[in-house]
């Protein structure tokens, strides 16, 4: 039976030969260089890509945000054409009733709707008179 020291020395000093296949060795080395190049290009591109992506995100967010706000403002400030006509007609009819009573109102009504043929579908004389009467009472 041999002492442990012999085992230790034997393994430590063992001449562990290996034969390396040069063809496979070359292929692995090429693979390593390719992996190295791949990682380098990714690494150098990485911060630039991140920056570009961040910039694109910020610009897109700003554009979308600005567009939404702008649209909201336009909706609030600029009513559609039909709504604008209706508003103007109501104002003119109201003013005519206040100044000249029913006769002035009928006159203004004829001028506004009958003559121009632009009578809105939702506006009826009955409803208008009701509203004006209510307005007068208040």
């Amino acid at each position, binding site marked *: 039976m041999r002492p442990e020291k012999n*085992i230790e020395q*034997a393994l*430590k000093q063992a001449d*562990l*030969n*290996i034969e*390396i296949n040069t063809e496979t*060795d070359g292929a692995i080395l090429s693979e390593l260089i390719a992996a190295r190049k*791949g990682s*380098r290009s990714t690494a150098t591109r990485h911060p630039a890509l991140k920056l570009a992506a961040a910039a694109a995100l910020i610009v897109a967010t700003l554009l979308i945000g600005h567009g939404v706000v702008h649209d909201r403002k336009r909706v609030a400030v600029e009513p559609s054409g039909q709504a604008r006509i209706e508003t103007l007609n109501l104002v003119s009819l109201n003013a005519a009733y206040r100044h000249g009573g029913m006769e002035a109102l009928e006159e203004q009504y004829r001028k506004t709707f009958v003559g121009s043929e632009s009578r809105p579908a939702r506006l009826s004389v009955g409803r208008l008179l009701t509203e004006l009467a209510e307005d007068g009472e208040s």
Partner: protein
Amino acid sequence: MLEDKLLIWKFKCGDNEALCRIYRKYRADLLKLAALLLHNASDAEDAVHDVFVSFAQTAERLKLSGNLKGYLLTCVANNARNRNRARQRKQTVGLDEAATVVCESATPEQWITYGEELHRWSDALGRLPYEQREVVTLHLRAGMKMRQIARLQGVSVNTVKGRYRYALEKLRSLLNGDLKP
């Protein structure tokens, strides 16, 4: 040591020659260690290959405090341990059967061929439990201290010393009369 530091610096600067030099300088040592740890030529080749590929890919992030050889040997030891765990999960044949299969299956694409001595030691170490095999191989072939191995295995130094002692006893009985004086 100084040469290694220079090689690492060049390698981090993108010098492919430095990578080739590191590879040629340490591949044999790493392959031998993997062969002793894994007791399977194909697994050993794969482990060293994986370590080198990872090393090549992590040039920019590499922060080496110790020596390069130690770093690479530790990488191989970690990779070998993971492979051994995976192999144990998949294993369907007995250890005695597996021992006859390993190291002898040569394919045209094989990277290394074992020498006689390596074959013998690989067979003997292959009969030890993996933890004991790892302690003996890392201490005697990779030159690691018990403290380092303990950290690597996540156990106390005394446990590592115990594993080392049991491993040597078993090796002695396995190789009795087979060793040169």
